[in-house]
């Protein structure tokens, strides 16, 4: 549904996006993450046709954005970063303008507006001037224009920025729900959001793609991924450490305090937890607590992006 091929964009001598490729199918929500200034918004702006690319192509439902921009844009709903709006209009006037541009008339126009208003919980402020709205309502008003025409493709730049926790939850649920039938890209630097809504992740740093996969795969790149934490009662610590250290998939064992052991696997081995569990069962040790660290996104994020930041 969304195909980005070898996209590059330079502003003067500065290369903002460098040979980025990915695709999003219908039913997928792509979490587009990266540090501030990594090129996320620039990439979004190229995908939505606001910026022309320096190199590469964008296809929206097989329509080339550079060749048929109007057709491609008609299939997209876009929430730009900071949700810009015409502040002298009321919410209704603004949505009515968006509906006019999308070619809706009469009853269909009204029903589209009603539907978007209901989905974004805008009824209380429908006839209020936009410049008097809170940040959350402004954000949702811009979100409403993005979904008003029920597009196949949604591009959402920081969709929960400035929302309170309840509103964030509502918007994430809405994205998840719409993600079942649409192709969605959400740009964010809130990593929990990626875990909450995205079915796949693209991480960019200094304009380059440094990772593409699921959030679980991204987490697995964490140094701590696969680390087993174990609390054993009634066993002499050094004996337990020596025994666990001898296991084939174990790289090292640390005594994290008292009877708590932190076991680091070799090469993020997924077999470590099973081997450790088998060992303690066989020995008949009494296990009070057993947990496997699935890795931390913030740590991987830091690891994959810090080199580029340092270079820059």
């Amino acid at each position, binding site marked *: 549904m969304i195909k980005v091929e070898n996209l590059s*964009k*330079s*502003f*003067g001598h500065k290369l*903002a996006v460098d040979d980025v490729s990915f695709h999003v199918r219908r039913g997928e929500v792509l979490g587009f993450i990266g540090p501030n200034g990594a090129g996320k918004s620039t990439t979004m*702006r190229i995908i*939505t*046709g*606001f*910026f*022309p690319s320096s190199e590469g192509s964008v296809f929206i439902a097989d329509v080339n954005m550079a060749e048929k*921009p*109007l*057709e491609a*844009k*008609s299939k*997209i709903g*876009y929430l*730009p970063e*900071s949700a*810009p*709006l*015409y*502040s*002298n*209009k009321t919410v209704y*006037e603004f949505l009515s*303008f*968006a509906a*006019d*541009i*999308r*070619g809706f008339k009469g009853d269909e126009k009204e029903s589209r507006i009603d539907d978007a208003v209901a989905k974004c919980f805008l009824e209380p402020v429908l006839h209020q001037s936009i410049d008097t709205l809170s940040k959350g309502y402004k954000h949702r008003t*811009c979100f409403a*224009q993005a979904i008003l025409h029920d597009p196949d493709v949604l591009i959402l730049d920081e969709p929960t920025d400035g929302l309170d926790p309840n509103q964030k939850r509502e918007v994430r649920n809405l994205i998840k729900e719409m993600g079942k039938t649409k192709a969605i890209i959400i740009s964010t630097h809130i990593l929990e959001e990626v875990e909450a809504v995205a079915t796949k992740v693209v991480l960019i740093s200094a304009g380059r793609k440094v990772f593409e996969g699921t959030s679980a795969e991204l987490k697995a790149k964490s140094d701590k991924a696969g680390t087993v934490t174990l609390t054993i009662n009634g066993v002499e610590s050094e004996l337990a450490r020596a025994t666990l250290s001898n296991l084939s998939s174990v790289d090292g064992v640390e005594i994290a305090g008292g009877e708590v052991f932190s076991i680091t696997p070799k090469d993020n081995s997924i077999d470590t937890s099973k081997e450790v569990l088998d060992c303690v069962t066989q020995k008949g040790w009494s296990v009070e607590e057993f947990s496997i660290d699935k890795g931390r996104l913030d740590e991987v994020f830091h690891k994959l992006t810090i080199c580029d930041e340092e270079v820059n």
Partner: protein
Amino acid sequence: MSFRNIKALMKSEIGSYMVSPAAYVFVIIFLLLSGSFTFLLGGFFQSGQATLSVFFMWHPWLYLFMVPAAGMHLWSEERRSGTLELLFTMPVTPFECIIAKFFAAWAFIAVGLFCTFPVVLTVSYLGNPDFGAIMTGYLGSILMAGSYLAITGFTSAITRSQVVSFIISVVVCLLLIFIGWPPITNTLVDWAPRGLIDFFASLSVMSHFESIQRGVIDSRDLLYYFSVIGFFLFLTSITLKNHRSG
């Protein structure tokens, strides 16, 4: 080019003018100034002639500030608030947006100009004016306003600041007035070829406005105004394209 899109964009723009208190203030100031220039400074009653020449003669100067004030927001505000991104990612072409914004603002100025009809009523009550000359005077006036507006549209596309847009626009419009002004052209006579001076003088809004308000519709005058409008709308589109191309 889709007329449906232009209509939707114009409707939105005109709607913005209608809810803006600044727009009403603009019209009132325009009427007050044009009235005082005509009746107080222009000596309308003392002239003893049933013509609107003293009314129209102030328009190039009045528009010099009023039109940039009316149009300085056209693109600079879109750029400042970020709505340009919203607009240009909708299924509309930049050309449609430029045309719609220009015509909406021009229509707004035309409404302001229309509100000066009591001047026409006054002159027809007092005497027997040449209505043909009055109509061409209004035509010339609105075309000149359109030219100034196209210039302002361009200056508002090159900056996010409405104030900067206003100042540059006033300077450019002033240049178009002065370029054919005899005190300026006379200083050039000594060293510049006659043809060059005539060419520059022909670029002045003044010479074209003077002939059209006398009741003569010359195709060269119409061509001049439409050329200025077309040229600056074209420059606006280039500027907006460059802004997005980086």
